[in-house]
């Protein structure tokens, strides 16, 4: 008797949980759709930028542009920007990003480079503060809908310090959005610039000179890489949350099935026992 009441209570509780995870799954699905559209919509801009830069770039430029300087690969100060989500309940999403960022940080430090951390997203910031790592900057206000302005606010100060020689590299750890089920943590070197050179040079008429145009376009290119990392991470978060909530909903369903079966068996056993007792009692009275 007491056992079946306990089972009823648990079934009710798991049903409530399933309701919540189901709702979260649906919310994530609809947000994912919009975030995914933003990822796709941002592509043409990046492509044309890379195309034009490849068309104008020539190796001699590096000496004249501080933004193109190529410090030696194994010394100096690195800014590591890591992105996580502001909210949890998205499976291993944040844990994976944090691990990637931490591995990279340790790897760089073991090679004798100074690393400063820039955190975007509450979960990662919380982790690094917890292990007692100082962060050079921390932003939790870039949520679901990152804009090019957000990207510019993050990268602009770093870019200026890179040009001034104070920083020697800027790397980003973000969640690449391959598709909603595949969102691997990924590392991207934003500075020094890896120039896109996979395109055929075109003989453009230029106004003003190639130098002037590159001076204006290169910062746009840098900023856009940061923007894409933000947008892809936002989309990946929703993908990861949808997957996590879907499996939570499925598991809750399995658990309810199992509890119902157990409950029904207990109920049946009790009825059988009561009948047996009544029959036994009647037999005894007959004497």
């Amino acid at each position: 008797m007491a056992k079946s009441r306990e089972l009823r209570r648990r079934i009710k509780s798991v049903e409530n949980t399933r309701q919540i995870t189901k709702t979260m799954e649906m919310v994530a699905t609809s947000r994912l759709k919009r975030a995914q559209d933003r990822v796709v919509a941002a592509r043409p801009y990046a492509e044309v930028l890379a195309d034009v830069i490849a068309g104008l770039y020539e190796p001699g430029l590096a000496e004249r542009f501080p933004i193109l300087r190529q410090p030696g690969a194994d010394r100096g100060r690195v800014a590591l920007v890591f992105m996580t989500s502001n909210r949890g309940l998205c499976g291993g999403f944040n844990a994976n990003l944090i691990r990637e960022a931490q591995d990279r940080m340790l790897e760089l430090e073991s090679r004798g480079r100074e690393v400063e951390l820039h955190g975007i997203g509450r979960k990662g910031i919380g982790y690094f503060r917890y292990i007692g790592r100082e962060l050079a900057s921390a932003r939790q206000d870039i949520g679901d809908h990152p804009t090019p302005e957000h990207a510019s606010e993050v990268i602009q100060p770093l870019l200026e310090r890179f040009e001034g020689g104070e920083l020697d590299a800027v790397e980003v750890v973000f969640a690449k959005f391959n598709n909603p089920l595949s969102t691997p943590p990924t590392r991207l070197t934003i500075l020094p610039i890896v120039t896109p050179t996979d395109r055929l040079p075109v003989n453009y008429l230029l106004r003003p000179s190639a130098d002037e145009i590159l001076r204006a376009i290169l910062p746009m290119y840098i900023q856009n890489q940061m923007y894409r990392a933000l947008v892809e991470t936002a989309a990946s978060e929703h993908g990861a949350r949808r997957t996590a909530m879907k499996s939570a909903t499925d598991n809750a369903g399995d658990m309810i099935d199992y509890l119902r079966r157990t409950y029904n068996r207990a109920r049946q056993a009790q009825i059988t026992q009561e009948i047996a007792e009544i029959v036994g009692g009647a037999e005894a009275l007959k004497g």
Partner: protein
Amino acid sequence: MRITVISPERAIYDGDATAVRAPAYDGLVGILPGHAPFVTLLGEGVLTVENGGERHEFQVRQGFLQVVEGVVRVVAEHAEKSKA
């Protein structure tokens, strides 16, 4: 010729044009079909796209314009369609 107007967030316009007037850094430039490959920086102002009788206007700021193989790409840091 084809023209696409692209901002960091999305492609705002993609279609055919018979003439384009764009605010370059040093004044308006006009692009007609058959233009040579061309890259110029943009200033701030109104980009006009004409296609036969149709006419579209966009407010653009910063970025560049590229003409290559009969395709005009206007890539602006800020771009939005002007209200008709």
